[in-house]
């Protein structure tokens, strides 16, 4: 297990370094002029040059990349100030190192992702189990249709519709917003409720479908048949035997979904005006805040890579048949 984790972690580091390199070099093909963003209304060429020099934009790009990578590990000094490790660069727009901003935005994204994940996992798997348990009945059919429909919905449509109905129209839900859970858990909950529900509506479809088909498949497997033949009750068979076999693939999908959600659900955050990491990325594109974008890109990739490893490890724990190769 340990060997597996070490090996995968090293692989992950290599992948992240590659991603950072690709991202860094591609971004500096952008015809952006970050110095101008640090200048003001009466900006003249002299001040522009001054700022340019101050921020080290005149060095060759490979040198800039080298400095960037060193900064992540050791921190670095900019003429405008010191940037502590992990230093993911300095945002000219915010006049601040990138890392604190991402750290600041992350709780929003985390709340959104975890809350939604709890809802869609519980509801999705629950519905799938009911459908498998009652397979062939009208309940099964209804749930199958619902999940098919759910899968076909888009946040940018359903999200806006829900805002129009439940927030502006009926006023039964609060305008989505992030309030720190540490300050006021009730407001945190009510502020995130609508985004959670909308995300869940879309995501849970996959889980109920998967749970159902896995369970149905498992019920035909030999070990389950044997259990039944031994005279165990249907309920015991269902929950003790069939269920265990169905968990592994669900965990896989869950890990991937959670990883990508933590990397920033841009459209969701944009629709509900939540200021998370995804929103930060979109805003950075608009403001051509390249250092910020680099940072978000790396953090998001890291989230995906880390969750892939976690899932693989979990997979092995759940399903001993999988070799940690």
């Amino acid at each position, binding site marked *: 297990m340990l060997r597996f984790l070490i090996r995968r972690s090293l692989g992950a580091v290599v992948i992240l370094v590659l991603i950072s390199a690709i991202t860094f070099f591609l971004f500096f093909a952008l015809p952006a002029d970050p110095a101008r963003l640090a200048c003001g209304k009466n900006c003249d060429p002299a001040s522009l040059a001054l700022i340019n020099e101050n921020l080290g934009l005149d060095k060759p790009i490979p040198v800039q990349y080298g400095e960037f990578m060193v900064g992540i590990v050791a921190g670095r000094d900019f003429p405008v100030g010191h940037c502590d490790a992990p230093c993911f660069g300095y945002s000219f727009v915010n006049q*601040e190192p990138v890392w604190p901003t991402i750290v600041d935005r992350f709780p929003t994204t985390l709340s959104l992702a975890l809350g939604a994940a709890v809802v869609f996992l519980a509801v999705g798997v629950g519905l799938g189990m009911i459908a498998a348990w009652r397979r062939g009945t009208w309940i099964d059919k209804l749930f199958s249709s619902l999940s098919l429909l759910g899968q076909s919905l888009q946040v940018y449509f359903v999200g806006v519709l829900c805002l129009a109905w439940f927030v502006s129209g009926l006023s039964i839900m609060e305008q989505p917003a992030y309030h720190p859970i540490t300050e006021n858990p009730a407001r945190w909950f009510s502020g995130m409720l609508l985004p959670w529900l909308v995300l869940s509506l879309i995501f849970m479809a996959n889980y109920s479908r998967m749970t159902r088909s896995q369970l149905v498949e498992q019920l035909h497997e030999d070990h389950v048949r044997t259990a039944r033949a031994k005279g165990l009750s249907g309920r015991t068979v269902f929950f003790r035997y069939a269920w265990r076999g169905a968990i592994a693939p669900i965990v896989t999908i869950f890990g991937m979904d959670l990883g990508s959600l933590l990397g920033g659900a841009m459209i969701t955050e944009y629709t509900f005006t939540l200021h998370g990491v995804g929103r930060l990325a979109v805003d950075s594109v608009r403001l051509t805040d390249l250092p910020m974008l680099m940072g978000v890109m790396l953090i998001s990739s890291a989230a995906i890579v880390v969750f892939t490893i976690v899932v693989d490890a979990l997979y092995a724990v759940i399903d001993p048949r999988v070799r940690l190769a």
Partner: protein
Amino acid sequence: MTVNRTSKVRTCAIALAAGALVLTACSEGGGSGSDRSTEPTMEAHGITLGSAADSTGPAKEVPGAKKGGTVRVLQRDAYEYLDPGQIYVTDELIMQTVYNRTLTNYQVDDKTGKTKLVGDLATDIGRSSDGGRTWTYTLKDGLKFEDGTPITSRDVRHSIERLYAKYQTNGPLYLQQWLSGEGQTFRKALPDGPYGGDHLPASVLDTPDDKTIVFHFDQPRAEVPFAVAMPNIGAVPPGKDKKEGYNKAPVASGPYKVADFKPGKGITFVRNEHWDPKTDPIRHQYVDRFEVSFGHQWMDSTRRLLADQGADKRAMTWNNAVDPAQISTVLKDKEAMARSLTRTQPYVDVVSINTSRVKNKKVREALAWAFPNGQYLQQYGGPKAGEIAGSLVGPTLKGHNRDFDPFQKRKYPGGNIKKAKELLKEAGKEGYRIVYAYGNDKPAQDASVVVVRALEAAGFTVEKKELDRGTYYTQIGKVNNTYDLYRSSWSADWPSGSTVVPPVYSGKNVHDSSPNYSHLNSPTINKEIERIERIEDLDKAAPEWVKLAERVLTEEIPQVPVFYNRLFTLWGSGIGGVKFHEPYGAVDPTAVFVR
């Protein structure tokens, strides 16, 4: 599992989908439906000069005002600069009024909304001698910084001398240039500012005692009282000035001080106990705290203020406008309208014609006739966001002539296409190729649609060029740019044509990143600018500037005026004392209180 079973499920799914459609179909349609809304009428007030008596504190009590409470301030853009020397954009201009005091300042009357220029740190708006070449200011008694140390003339001198240092790149330059030379040459008078122990000679900036500051100019400067109202002419304690570091920890002289600044996120102001209301004719200290948070798009702040729930009842915004998409919702809401204001801002939106490319005056005239001002303004929010402009200088400017509209923009909101077509034909330039550049934000993209349609109807061939929003002004600011037509907006720094006409239309200012985006360099206009700059009497100069701006438009057509900006904004029902700060075009926070 037969095909038939799954087929039924699918049929069911399709039925469900259809059901969902019916559900959405039930939603009520939009549109204001009944009455057509009418355009609001409003007047700009202009600014009068206050006497020494007007300059003495305390400020008149606001009826019904109470002490205490926290006000939340919802702002779209994050503040970049707290250092008063670096402040120039509207958001920050209005924000600094709560902690930063300057030699003179604007006093907005609570009832009439009229603005008066009065002494702030100084006892009056300044006394001139030597034919306007020398200006003397005396500091009031009892002025203190937030740490309790008294404010002296040395602190004022330091606030000015530090502007000569290289890192001070963003603030206004009027006073420095008048004292020490045009362009960037003034910096040579004091390289690196006062940090090495050097000072400007007494023949330029003199502080004979702790209370007196004397400016010596080489020519008459009538507008000094306004120039020293800019945020960078205040008081900065030399001992606390850590150059760039001062940007995050400015020392307050006003009724509030910075408690907590999180760049990109927000800032909190709390009471400054050492501020003495008896010295201040402008500001109050009603609320305990201002909690400013950034990142509230107009849509977000409008929704919160409109809903008026919970903590948002005690929320306001200093310059977020009502989102264009929600204007009709707000207009229908009588309760919300009672806590709103719509006022003219000092900005004028224009489209510049690149005169170094479009040299033919007839072609420029055709462009001016064809430009669809009304349709363009509609994309930015219609009459609540601005008023169709006929002149290059706005209604807040002294001497503005409301009837001046040479291209009949009010009569033809979609542009006078016929006239433009004729002119283009006369010039023999049918099919003339125009490169229209615009920033890649939503209203500008929508506006590009109507601009292209109108110009093409008038016989131009239009090529659109979308520019990055972040670098838009750099790109159109290059003298050798390859665009013909681009929008820009300019605001008078104080309500005089001298802060509009020379920077925007003087041939001296044709260089990169200059506000003279049309590259106009006309000998007659240049000569006129120099003549009017010498007029000592502000009341005489004002109409001359307006007339010159009109001449620029009719004789040279370097720009087409599009609309005069307006601010339509809301505040929470738990807040009182809200008024409009006309010179800055934002909501004045100085008299705000919690009900």
